[in-house]
């Protein structure tokens, strides 16, 4: 049987530079025009901006590198991308095209708070086929509890004005909602809101402990249980609806059920699957959040600067090597101890670091909220639907054995 071999190959691949980059996150500016209470970005009040010289070097190096395959997603984020003028992105996209000598399929996406969207921006999105992701937490009282401007006032009205412009221009968009303890008791209102909004897909980001956000309202046993009930309620409402809200967390798992793979990989713990650039040209990999963070033991998580280093040099960087080894140790421990490893792939390094203090650790509360709870909720939901009661089972506490996956 090949499965033992798989396991070794997997780690060999991670260590031997055989990754293709799927996602490139570019911080065009560190500035955000709003000031969300749970934000992890330390420099969001600083108006730093990437220079054309750095941007050109990023594209030049990326498209010449061995990391790029047939398709690449550029996500403009880590600061509000629409703070910069349209002309900035027109120039950036021209540079992309200039250096895309292998004719890689490029997708550009903006993750935005939508407050600065104008008709001109809509025209730009359409002209350049930009994918738009809007950060919106739900109905006004939920959204405005945390997504506030620098004066402490809610931003819901301005966000909705931006969304209305997208809809008026027939621009499809996805949404990401940060879930806090105030959302989880209001599943019906939350669902109703997003059902009417009809984003292409809704991602649920449970509030995390990361960077300068030192606590999460969801990180108690009681609130993890409430989150589970919240998810169950959303699934039930979806089941009864003619137009369900497509929820990313359930879709990812449903995809694995329809097209199972022996292993799951998480972008955030496979080196160079994501490359993150800050506006000074520093680059990092693994969890995007690491790029802007520092830590007492590790310092910063910049593994090079694109004006001085090639991307391939990252593998010679001693700090990268040390962190990579620590992360892989953590994944191995997850594999040995966690029942959810087959649907997770070993957890997010930034969550491990900020919750457990080390990369070579295992379960976090973020794991429980982002992976374990949605998995349990969806599996229980589908088992009720497809499996006779006599054949159902309580949740297993046993570690996953890979062999059990491929039945002989």
């Amino acid at each position: 049987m090949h499965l033992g071999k798989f396991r070794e190959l997997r780690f060999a691949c991670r260590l031997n530079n055989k990754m293709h980059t799927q996602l490139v996150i570019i911080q065009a500016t560190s500035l955000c025009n709003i000031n969300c209470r749970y934000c992890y970005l330390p420099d969001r009040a600083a108006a730093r901006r990437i220079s054309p010289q750095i941007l050109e070097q990023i594209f030049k190096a990326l498209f010449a590198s061995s990391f790029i395959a047939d398709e690449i997603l550029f996500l403009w984020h880590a600061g509000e991308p629409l703070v910069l003028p349209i002309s900035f992105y027109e120039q950036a996209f021209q540079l992309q095209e200039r250096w895309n000598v292998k004719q890689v399929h490029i997708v550009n996406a903006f993750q935005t708070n939508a407050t600065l969207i104008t008709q001109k921006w809509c025209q730009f999105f359409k002209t350049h086929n930009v994918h738009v992701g809007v950060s919106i937490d739900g109905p006004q009282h939920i959204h405005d509890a945390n997504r506030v401007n620098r004066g402490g006032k809610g931003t819901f009205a301005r966000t909705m004005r931006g969304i209305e412009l997208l809809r008026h221009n027939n621009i499809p968009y996805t949404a990401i909602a940060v879930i806090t303890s105030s959302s989880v008791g209001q599943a019906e209102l939350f669902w109703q809101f997003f059902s009417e909004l009809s984003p292409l897909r809704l991602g649920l980001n449970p509030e995390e402990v990361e960077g300068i956000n030192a606590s999460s309202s969801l990180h108690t046993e009681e609130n993890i249980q409430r989150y589970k009930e919240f998810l169950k309620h959303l699934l039930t409402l979806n089941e009864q609806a003619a137009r369900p809200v497509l929820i990313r967390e359930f879709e990812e798992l449903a995809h694995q059920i329809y097209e199972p793979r022996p292993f799951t990989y998480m972008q955030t713990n496979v080196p160079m699957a994501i490359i993150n650039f800050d506006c000074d040209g520093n680059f990092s990999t693994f969890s995007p959040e690491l790029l802007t963070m520092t830590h007492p033991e590790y310092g910063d998580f910049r593994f090079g600067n694109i004006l001085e280093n090639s991307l391939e040099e990252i593998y010679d960087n001693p700090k990268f090597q040390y962190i990579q080894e620590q992360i892989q140790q953590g994944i191995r421990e997850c594999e040995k101890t966690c029942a959810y490893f087959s649907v997770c792939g070993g957890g997010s390094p930034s969550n491990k670091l900020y919750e457990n203090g080390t990369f070579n650790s295992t379960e976090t509360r973020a794991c429980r909220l982002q992976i374990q709870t949605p998995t349990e909720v969806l599996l229980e939901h589908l088992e009720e639907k497809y499996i006779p009661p006599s054949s159902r089972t309580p949740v297993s506490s046993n570690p996953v054995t890979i062999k059990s996956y491929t039945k002989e």
Partner: protein
Amino acid sequence: MEPIKSAQKFSIAERIHRLHVLMNLADSPEDQDAMVAREKQRSAEEATKSETELEWRNIEPTRGCIWENFGNYVLHAD
């Protein structure tokens, strides 16, 4: 069809495999024999793939980071 275990604990992977089979059967009940045959063939193929095939097929990350909401995770069931 593969017998369903009962009165035992299932791992997450087993539960997914079980649902994979049952949900595909439910989608096309008239085609159960073909479904079972396909499953057998898939397992057999998996066991004979070369290391290179396995390497590339299995290393591609399938779970995005929490800021990634644009990838192709769309469920293609009706």
